[in-house]
């Protein structure tokens, strides 16, 4: 049963088995995509999906009530990475399409992902580059930025997940924003 295995992975990660964390990611990734597709087919044209709603739905689908609250931080961390990958893959494919010319029909999952966010608002690939620089230099601030940007978590939620004060998250996020903006402007 999927729920049980994800919950087990989360508990093992919490007990310090970092290697198991790798198993978590593909499950979360697949689930997020599946939910996006399901939701999209039920959505009137022109409407978009909220990443936060997707992540929460994936959470309910994948994790049962026995998982400790601390383990949830790992889940949302993995979800942020999965959202990021979905968006980045999608942006890469879109760019390849533009360059390669040929009119290929857009696959359903691409459409789903495009609908998730208004990806034109910011260059997803440039943002990803900036994010990697931030991670190399300031990993904690990058964690906060990932949850803000890709999961849409509020400062209060991140504070609770990481067990720090809201004030700390606020400062980290402000720093991360300045850093990312600087990188994007370069």
């Amino acid at each position, binding site marked *: 049963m999927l729920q049980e295995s994800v919950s087990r992975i989360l508990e093992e990660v919490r007990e310090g088995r970092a290697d198991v964390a790798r198993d978590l990611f593909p499950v979360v990734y697949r689930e997020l995509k599946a939910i996006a597709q399901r939701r999209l087919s039920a959505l009137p044209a022109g409407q978009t999906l909220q990443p936060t709603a997707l992540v929460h739905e994936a959470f309910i689908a994948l994790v*049962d009530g026995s998982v400790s609250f601390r383990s949830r931080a790992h889940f949302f961390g993995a979800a942020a990475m999965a959202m990021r990958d979905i968006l980045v893959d999608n942006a890469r494919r879109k760019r390849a399409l533009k360059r390669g010319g040929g009119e290929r029909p857009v696959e359903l999952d691409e459409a789903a992902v495009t609908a998730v966010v208004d990806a034109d608002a910011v260059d997803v690939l440039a943002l990803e580059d900036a994010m990697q620089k931030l991670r190399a*230099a300031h990993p904690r601030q990058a964690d906060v930025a990932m949850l803000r940007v890709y999961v*849409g978590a509020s400062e209060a939620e991140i504070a609770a997940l990481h067990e720090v004060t809201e004030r700390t998250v606020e400062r980290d996020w402000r*720093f991360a924003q300045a850093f990312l*903006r600087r990188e994007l402007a370069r």
Partner: protein
Amino acid sequence: MSEAHRERVFAIFAEAIERAPSERAAWLDEACRGEPALRSEVDELLAFDAETRAPSLRLAPEREERASDAVPERVGRYTIDRVLGAGGMGLVYAAHDKSLGRTVALKLVRGGGDAVSRARLLREAQAMARIASPFVVPVYEVGLEGDDVFVAMEHVDGSTLSRWLDAEPRPQRAILERFIEAGRGLAAAHKAGVLHRDFKGSNVLVGSDGRARVLDFGLARGIDPDLRSRVGDASSATLDAKITAHGSLMGTPGYLSPEHFTGDFRAESDQWRYCAALYRALFGALPCEGETLASLRESVSRGPKQPPIERASEFDPVVVRAVMRGLSPDPASRWPSMDALVSELASSVAVSRDADPRAFRRQKQWALAIVGALGALNYAVQLARTGGRFDLRISLRSIAIAFFVLAVMCAAFRRTLLSTRHNRALLSAFALVLATMVVHRAYGVLRGLDVVDVLRIDALICLTVSAVSAIALERWLWGTVAIMASYLALSALGPLATQALFPAALLTSAALAVWNWRAPTLRELTRDDTDRTPSR
């Protein structure tokens, strides 16, 4: 670049943004002296921090906001200025009301779903508008704009209570005052028939005037009509879904009242959450914790944890008891109403005249000093009148005066002196000794007994009382008792000769008591006198 350098960049940036832009340059000159590379990097980051027109980085909007929802220009007669934040279930904007020329906070709840849930939302907002209290953010107008429901409220300039608490260590009195205000707001809401359902520090605003106001009443409930039916069965998966839908379980859930697990939310549940928030503000920890929903549920049903001893002893026992009662697992054993709870808390603030949590100790020391001074005065007058000769009648009178003074002091300082069990035990032992002496000496006067015999027997009676009461007293008071007991033993041998030692013994033991007079320990605070805890 080195790890240390990167950490300094962040540390200096974080400190710089706390300062007013006008002071920043001078402060940075100081902080980055001799490190031009550091300075230029921080300057650069600060420039990007200030750049408000920079592209939004938020790919995923917070859940209240939808990607398709642009900021509206106008809602009703209000012109939208800017986004203030996301609260409750919608975005909150700063908006201008042209006709009245004032700024309002406008909460816009997008497309409240079907007509039924929209109507419910509207009803809840109207209920909130009925609450008239200076401690609830006043609602100016509630209305429909197309599919959206908007609520125009007072624009409060300030921060949330949780930020206010985080910003700096606050004295106990200030914390209590803010919570008492918020509690009055909740009480007013309950009287108007409105439950809050989501009380926590971030739902209370502290204005720049220092007054606390409660925000976001019961609105969260209105949006999801099928939630109620789903909560009916409280399996952890359902509860998970319910709470995750509201976004509060993503992290550590701090404030789940026992009724959250049964779905039976009521006014007492608001009270529980209020007490949990106050508990956390005072003791820096949550009253109930669990790693999983199941263990949290168990912890909540067991009742609140004992507050950490070293913290609790700084606090007025009345407050500690009030909070612990509000956190009872059984709603029926909590306070009958928010009003009752708040007036209990308010009585504590009224007594502690000082912002210092140690005010109580100081008050006790004052009480003892006054008793000591009056006792010495009494003794001096007695000596002057008898010229050193012992007179039973005069001593009887001075003991009666001492008795009277003690009674007056107890009445004047009753909250401090009578608040804990051992204070009461100490004072009753004292009163018992005085009363025994009055009765015994009066008997001696009436029967014309030998003065020395009467004094000897007095000393033996007092010695017995001291020895017996020492068993019941705290160990740290034994030194005091030992001094008095040795004086009394000497006095039994030669009452007239040792008379002069009396003030010395009294003053030494009193000084020792003052020195040792610590705030009562937690054990007493919580187990103390069930007899005084009002029951329903």
